[in-house]
């Protein structure tokens, strides 16, 4: 599949959710080198492909089960092992309940779980906004061995590329509810950035998602936030969820480290919630973090006019 075909698979014209698919990573798909079984590293069985066939419905044809989701053809960090809990989807509401999902999971886990959920007729909607390292650059500093980029997006890139093959085989209903995919590490891991690191951290904004009105028009009355463990949503995402909650959409939380179904969740008022308050603060210079776009203040707008 070429870049356009991969993008079209994740953002098909027939889906009303495709408009929200973030194109950044797809535009860099040329970076995702072809992966052949010969490149599969030892111990790659923890990644998605080997596990997918077991959970796919019978109507899905044979899947490319040996393609790893991390590319080790270059000197790159392998993706972290995927916990078994990520592959467990029995908690997911039946699509008849018209719940949307927001998967805020690290690295490529959102793609992996998104594909599992696609088998249950959820439409995965990638919202990854980080820019990968420029072409040809190594992921690890050759001298120190430390990661060069703040956010490790190549595993996501590869997962999107390989996942397109799988997703293309699934015949999703036109009204499939969305599963929005986010990288929980998008703002960095909270570690201090070094001066020469490639800073590809990102945040999500309320405008990256459909409005509550649009969700309601699609008969979506509930949103389930899926996280590995944390009880509270990340600050940028809290703005999104809070707006939906204010509009009457029920918010639930599913922690993958805890068994059981999603539980109701009350999203508290995030810092600096509300655009007009932000306007007033911007006037006195409180409008963004020194790094220019994240930290406590995440909803400011672009530099460019």
């Amino acid at each position, binding site marked *: 599949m070429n870049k356009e075909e991969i993008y079209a698979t994740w953002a098909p014209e027939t889906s009303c959710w495709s408009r929200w698919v973030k194109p950044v990573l797809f*535009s860099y798909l040329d970076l995702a080198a072809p992966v052949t079984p010969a490149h599969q590293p030892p111990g790659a069985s923890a990644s998605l492909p080997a596990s997918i066939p077991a959970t796919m419905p019978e109507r899905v044809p044979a899947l490319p089960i040996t393609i790893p989701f991390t590319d080790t053809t270059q000197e790159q960090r392998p993706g972290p092992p995927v916990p078994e809990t990520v592959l467990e989807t029995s908690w997911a509401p039946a699509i008849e309940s018209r719940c949307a999902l927001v998967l805020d999971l690290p690295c490529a886990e959102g793609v992996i779980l998104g594909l599992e959920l696609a088998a249950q007729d959820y439409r995965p909607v990638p919202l990854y906004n980080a820019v990968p390292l420029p072409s040809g650059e190594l992921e690890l500093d050759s001298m120190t061995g430390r990661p060069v980029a703040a956010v490790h997006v190549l595993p996501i890139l590869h997962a999107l590329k390989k996942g397109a093959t799988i997703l293309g085989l699934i015949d999703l209903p036109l009204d499939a509810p969305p599963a929005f995919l986010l990288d929980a590490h998008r703002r960095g891991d909270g570690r201090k950035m070094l001066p*020469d690191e490639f800073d590809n951290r990102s945040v999500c904004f309320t405008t990256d998602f459909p409005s509550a009105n649009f969700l309601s028009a699609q008969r979506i009355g509930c949103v389930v936030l899926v996280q590995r463990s944390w009880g509270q949503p990340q600050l940028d995402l809290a703005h999104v969820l809070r707006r939906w909650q204010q509009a009457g959409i029920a918010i639930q939380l599913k922690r993958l480290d805890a068994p059981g179904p999603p539980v109701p969740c009350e999203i508290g008022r995030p810092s600096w919630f509300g655009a007009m308050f932000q306007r007033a603060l*911007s006037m006195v210079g409180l409008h*963004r973090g020194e790094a220019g776009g994240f930290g406590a203040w995440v909803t400011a707008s672009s530099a460019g*006019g």
Partner: protein
Amino acid sequence: MSLVETARPPSGPVKRTLCELRSEGSDGATASGLHAGLALDPTAFAALRRRAVLEGCKWDPQVGDVDILAPFPLVMRRSVWHVLAAQAEQLAAEAIAAEAEVSCRPELLHQLELPRALRIALGGETPLTPPAGRVFRFDFHFTTEGWRISEANSDVPGGFSEASYFTALMAEQFPGLRPAGDPGGSWADALARTAGPGGVVALLSAPGLVEDHQVIAFLAARLRERDCLAYLAKPQQIAWRDGLAHLEGSGYRGRVAAVVRFYQAEWLVRLKGSCDWRRFIRGGQTPVANPGLAAISESKRFPLLWEQLSTPLPAWRALLPETRDPRHAPWEHEDGWLLKTAMCNTGETVTIRELLGTRDWRRTRRAARWFPGGWVAQRRFQSVPVLTPVGPRHVCIGVYTVNGEAAGIYARLAVKPLIDCAAPDAALLLEDDE
């Protein structure tokens, strides 16, 4: 390869004839020399949109529920473009002259509501860091009184991908119509000339904002087409040694030939640590674009200085609506005024009373009362909407100048007479006068 030259005859996806829509246009369409073209059919437009997002670095094609790329073009008579281009060139020349004068009269800078450290840097005596070029975008609107500008984007104008790549893609679909220019290509040409063959250019933006990344990624691609080495970075990764800029990045460590600062001047002062941000303005020898002095005309309070300047500003005076300090304008009682903050960069603080709820209006009013020095009151103009395939739309025509010469147009549409970050982008194409 020039994007403008790639236009080729259409494959015929246009739904209705151009004449049909033009005949339905409002009266303003005739007077403004501007009308909407016809929408492409959904399949053709979806393919075009895919190319724009995958190849043209248009990474924010959706803002909330709004599809940001309009499936129809705006069409302007070539003679109108020539007028706007000449006006934009004059505005640019006047702004640069005024900035030079203000930088020599630092006592004026405090009226612009710039951070103190930036004012000190702008008004210093160290030689100015040379410019790598200068790009402006002047936002024109057709009003009941003719063409007017709402503001100048002097410091970090964006929109190059939309104005160049997307517009060229749309032009491929409409025979006989051509883009007004290729501002991204013109800007890259200017930067490449400064950097020289094989020159290294560092393009700086704020981390975390994809809409900024897409601008410098697009420019970087254009620079690479011109045999430059282009690297994306953040301002903290520039180290100044003996006045020369060095990039301390993961992909390149060493001296650079030019710096593109897609990072607002007033944000620079918050950079901490080893970043000597003042060199972006004064004391550097490596060319920087845009130059730091751009912050002067970027401030929406720039018009408040005009009476104190010896620089004549006839184009600005003719085209920009009357602008006052909020303390000296009846904005609280008269609907003919709007408010905006001094460093309103993307239109997010432009406040028109009738477009706000009571609660929001009270908040803005309180803010403008408490901190009037951070705001301006500007007399409103009455924008004349253009009839489009999706209904009447107010149109903002952003005219670029690159090193003093008009370079193209970035057009946006809005239902309300207010252009903000959620205003859809439209390709503007030129037609020959009849």
